[in-house]
């Protein structure tokens, strides 16, 4: 099983150039809005036509600009779950599902009933999409797509149309579905939680270009790029330069930090996640003298904005987050960060 994608497409002021290879495990594409992630999916499905490159699914060439191959979406056998689900508003649940089945009414009947049961849509067969909840609409859309037995399943921001409560439950359902789905699954999102829960591999896009690629866990734990660190939730960055084998100078924070090497030669920034600071003594490694500036309460944690008390007035500010149970730790003298928690980043 393989999905090979190498596509280029030029727009006014924007150039998409994405290249990746998937072996069948759920792949996530993470990027800010306008990074070209939906466009990439649309090019794979044949909804948009790239200017050049190729798309090969399980050895079948779907698009190849050199060989002038460009299969219609109808011939690609790729399922696409739209952000809005794209259910036909003028058709009932069962009519929507019937659209992706071939054959006579008699042949479709049992298949539709089976899909209705499997996607927990019993008693909703005669409803129109406008009469369904967001979660039910998503299930109808998935039933309609999977009835077609696609070799690949593309999910475009699958949870953005749902409220938070429904989202959690549906992510569990989607996770189970993806684990058992026999084809390729590619999901694009700007939400780091979704992509962490649902994908095994992760591609990070910025302005139409790949900035990171790897297993989801490793991209989250050791992001190599400023953009990747930001998209995976890191809030604190400082320009940095290497000063020793395992030592960098954080220019904005005006302090020297021990890090766990090797330090990449093109290092431009370091990052520290707000959770990774902890109250410490002066002699702890990477201790920064704590000067609180602001304190913001969120439901389960405190967010404290501080800066290095030994730095000049213009020293960069840093966020520290800690759980509310640790209330007594609210005003330490020093905050430190483990060398392994300092992210070594480049910015190209």
């Amino acid at each position: 099983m393989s999905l090979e994608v190498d596509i280029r497409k030029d727009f006014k002021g924007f150039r998409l150039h994405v290249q990746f290879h998937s072996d069948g495990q759920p792949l996530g594409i993470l990027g800010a809005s306008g990074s070209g992630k939906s466009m990439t999916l649309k090019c794979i499905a044949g909804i948009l036509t790239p200017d050049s490159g190729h798309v090969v699914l399980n050895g079948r060439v779907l698009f190849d600009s050199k060989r002038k191959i460009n299969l219609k979406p109808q011939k690609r056998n790729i399922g696409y779950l739209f952000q809005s689900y794209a259910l036909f508003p003028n058709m009932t649940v069962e009519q929507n599902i019937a659209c992706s089945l071939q054959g006579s009414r008699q042949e479709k009947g049992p298949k539709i009933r089976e899909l209705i049961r499997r996607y927990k849509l019993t008693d909703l067969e005669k409803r129109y999409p406008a009469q369904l909840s967001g979660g039910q609409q998503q299930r109808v859309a998935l039933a309609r797509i999977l009835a077609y037995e696609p070799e690949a399943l593309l999910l475009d921001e699958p949870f953005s149309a749902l409220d938070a409560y429904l989202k959690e439950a549906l992510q569990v359902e989607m996770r189970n579905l993806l684990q058992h789905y026999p084809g390729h699954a590619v999901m694009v999102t700007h939400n780091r939680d979704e992509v962490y829960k649902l994908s095994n591999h992760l591609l990070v896009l910025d302005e139409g270009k790949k900035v990171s690629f790897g297993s989801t866990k490793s991209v989250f734990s050791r992001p190599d790029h400023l953009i990747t660190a930001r998209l995976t939730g890191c809030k604190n960055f400082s320009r940095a330069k290497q000063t020793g084998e395992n030592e960098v100078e954080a220019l904005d924070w005006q302090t020297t930090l021990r890090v766990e090497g090797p330090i990449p030669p093109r290092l431009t920034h370091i990052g520290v996640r707000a959770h990774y600071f902890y109250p410490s003594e002066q002699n702890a490694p990477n201790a920064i003298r704590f000067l609180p500036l602001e304190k913001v309460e969120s439901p389960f944690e405190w967010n404290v904005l501080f800066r290095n008390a030994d730095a000049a007035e213009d020293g960069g500010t840093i966020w520290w987050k800690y759980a509310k149970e640790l209330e007594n730790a609210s005003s330490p003298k020093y905050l430190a960060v483990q060398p392994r928690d300092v992210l070594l980043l480049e910015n190209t």
Partner: protein
Amino acid sequence: MDLSAVWISLKTASVSIVFTFLLGILAAWAVVSLHREKLKMVLDAILTLPLVLPPTVAGFFLLYIFGVKRPVGEFFLDVLGVKIVFSWGATVLAAVVISFPLMYRSARGAFEQVDADLVSAARTIGMNEWRIFRKVILPMALPGVAAGGILAFARGLGEFGATIMIAGNIAGQTRTLPLAIYSAVAGGNMESAYEYVLILVGISFLVVAGMNWFTAKERKYLGRGGRK
């Protein structure tokens, strides 16, 4: 009052709306499906022309094309044995040509309003283009298409300038209601004119009311009724 004008008008408007409706929808779909922007613009300009031309000018062109001494007109007369000019058929031809752009433009606008994701979704689940048109695009665009139909019918019913150019004003043959009103007024017969006007207003009102009722009925799926 000569009731033949009412009968001719109804016949002309009813027959012409069938042609206008089908041709307008097909032309709109064809233009919307085009990918070449320049060709699209040129075609659109040609198809809209009868709307912006004064009807007498459109009628003049029709006369120019279908006149018995012109190649097309000659072909119809000699080969098919049909004389178009100054016949009842000419009233239909004039109504179709003049009302066509209204139908075409309304349908085109309605098709372009249909959510592109719906069409893409239909393609990715393997529906062919004709099926997508029938099952998704046309039902979704129905209110706009129906509105276009109303406009086109009303325009066909009121057609005067092109009709008088190519069909003439022959009582009992090509004299539609608008022509009958003109003739009545020109002949100083205001009584008849009032009656014709009243009938024309009545028919127009009924058509609009009927179309509105039909559209509301077809769009019931958008209501959220039945949700628990």
